[in-house]
């Protein structure tokens, strides 16, 4: 079965004044129609760069795709001509950006920016395109759509603007949508509304969705699979429930442990010590090793590949496979204390076994 999007070993490097920066060092993930993949990671983990490379909108220079394949509906996008790629963009795959205020053209009315999609890709007349644009705005529940189609982006509130961005993305009913931190710039209540809208639309149009975020809370409701990225690489992929209950990578465990919990009263908040590495100076071996409580000698010399993870306690057996880029994924999965892996002292990891 051909997957909707199949990224294989994608590599992107940036040429900077201080040297070559490996922003993305071999990322592989896949999405199927009707499913949602969440890509989780801190700023600088390479998640946005990967998405932009998939869309083909990287600024090149300074960015260069240096390896890998991006199969979309069976075709490797990286081998297409510029013109072919352009036709795929917007019509078959669309992107939603984080900051709608700067992502929308400030001097063109919102309705015209929406109508543009129909005029360019479907050859519609201006009037027809405008009418469709108003319908679109209605569909994403912008009140008084007809009247507001002539307004400019700065006249909308943050949540409304993001709806406009979503409308622009779904205009041509693409098969795949990549949402790059769509709710980061919004208040929590508005976040929930926007995420609901996105989920509803995805169901209605049966699209594949890649949701890029650093917010674990947003992901839990919406995603089917999660891919965790660190320092330009995937460190773990898993179905969502399994990831939250039994992470198989120390970084994921660290992220989960950092979420403050209501029943954690009086204790110190946990945070992963240290900072993510600069892409100009990645550590040898596993990039997480300087901060990892489980790091051993091998971690400092051998970069772990993505090991296949078998988990007898999986909730969704046989669905998406699990993978983890840690030499000691088994220990992590079973919650073994790194200082006492054989469990002699009887301790278990914070989230239980």
């Amino acid at each position, binding site marked *: 079965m051909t997957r909707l999007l199949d990224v294989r070993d994608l590599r992107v*490097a940036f040429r900077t004044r201080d040297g070559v920066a490996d922003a993305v060092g071999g990322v592989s993930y896949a999405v199927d129609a009707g499913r949602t993949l969440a890509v989780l990671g801190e700023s600088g983990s390479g998640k946005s760069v990967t998405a932009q490379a998939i869309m083909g909108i990287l600024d090149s220079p300074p960015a260069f*795709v240096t390896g890998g394949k991006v199969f979309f509906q069976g075709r490797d996008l990286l*081998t297409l001509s510029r013109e072919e790629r352009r036709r795929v963009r917007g019509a078959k795959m669309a992107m939603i950006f984080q900051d709608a205020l700067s992502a929308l053209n400030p001097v063109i009315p919102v309705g015209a920016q929406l109508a543009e999609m129909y005029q360019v890709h479907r050859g519609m007349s201006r009037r027809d395109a405008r009418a469709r644009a108003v319908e679109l705005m209605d569909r994403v529940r912008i009140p008084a759509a007809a009247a507001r189609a002539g307004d400019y982006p700065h006249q909308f509130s943050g949540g409304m603007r993001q709806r406009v961005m979503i409308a622009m993305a779904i205009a041509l009913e693409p098969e795949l949508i990549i949402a790059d931190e769509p709710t980061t710039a919004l208040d929590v209540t508005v976040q929930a509304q926007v995420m609901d809208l996105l989920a509803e639309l995805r169901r209605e149009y049966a699209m594949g969705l890649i949701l890029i975020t650093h917010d674990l809370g947003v992901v839990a409701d919406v995603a089917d699979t999660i891919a965790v990225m660190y320092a330009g690489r995937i460190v773990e992929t898993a179905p969502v429930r399994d990831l939250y209950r039994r992470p198989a990578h120390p970084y994921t465990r660290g992220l989960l442990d950092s979420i403050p919990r209501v029943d954690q009263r009086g204790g110190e908040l946990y945070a992963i010590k240290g900072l993510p590495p600069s892409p100009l100076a990645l550590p040898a071996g596993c990039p997480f090793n300087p901060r990892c409580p489980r790091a051993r000698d091998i971690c400092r010399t*051998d970069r772990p590949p993505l090991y296949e993870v078998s988990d007898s306690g999986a909730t969704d057996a046989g669905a998406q496979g699990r993978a983890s880029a840690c030499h000691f994924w088994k220990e992590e999965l079973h919650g073994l204390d790194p200082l006492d892996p054989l469990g002699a002292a009887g301790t278990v990891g914070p989230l239980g076994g």
Partner: protein
Amino acid sequence: MPEPCEPLQPCEARSDTSSDRPVDLAATGTATLQSGPRSRPWRRRPLPRLRWRAAAPRPATGGPVPGNRGLWSDAWHDLRRNPVFLLSALVILFLVTIAVWPQLIADGNPYQGNLAKAQDGPAPGHPFGFDLQGRDVYTRTVYGARASITVGICATAGAALLGSVLGGLAGFFGGWWDALLSRIADVFFGIPILLGGLVFLSVVTSGSVWPVVGFIVLLGWPQISRIARGAVVTVRQQDYVLAARTLGAGNGRMLLRHIAPNAVAPVIVVATIALGTYIALEATLSFLGVGLKPPTVSWGIDISSASTQIRNAPHMLLWPAAALSITVLAFIMLGDAVRDAIDPKLR
């Protein structure tokens, strides 16, 4: 079904998705960047001049990460390698030197001439020929640098000082000081500078540099003050300023330690470029007869008197004109280079 791994032993990889041999980037690069056979040949630029090596492994607790210098050292780093900056700095150094010691390269007398030789072309010992009054054009051109450089530097220093102080204070305190300053600046902006110069200097009888300098400072400070005000307002809104105030810093300390160093960069850029334009302005005013007057030696005066005889003796005009243009060019190039080095948006 993979073997369950023993604890403490790294597991065998079964996944086929990753590879960790260093990639030969020069080979794969072109394959992925270029599109299929239909791509135009001129687009097939190989990854140029990149020393593609897989990022060299560094120790986990390595030294300082590259790229973390401050604004000024970064700027200096860039400037040192910028040929435009180096060239213009050299030329300016040369000009300043001969402005202070014209005798270094010209030992003639710029004030007295031999009328018998008026308008003559180049002769041995007089490479640029003679002017309308028989004076040596080469000597006058060299001495002319003094007036231009003096006016340029003094006027810029004055306008920059006045402008930064007034604009900076207006930006810092805001309120009706700011409004007052903006209105006053608008008044000065409302008078086109050459017009103002003509009117103001026509009633001045002295032919020395100081009235010209004074006038340029008078009409030039608003431009600098606007930049300074904008820079201070931007810096004032930064978090570190708020933090300093929360820690109890008073106004004076804030201004000197926190705001001034960060707001000064755009002012420097504008002032350097303005220097070039002030030199051109002085020459224009002298050309029109209201700027410097004889016996002060100025390129503008020379060009003005030579322009009537351009058919017969173009050399009288061309040498001072070339010197003037090169001087202005050097300062503007310097300002450009400094701006490219300092402006973070262009990095």
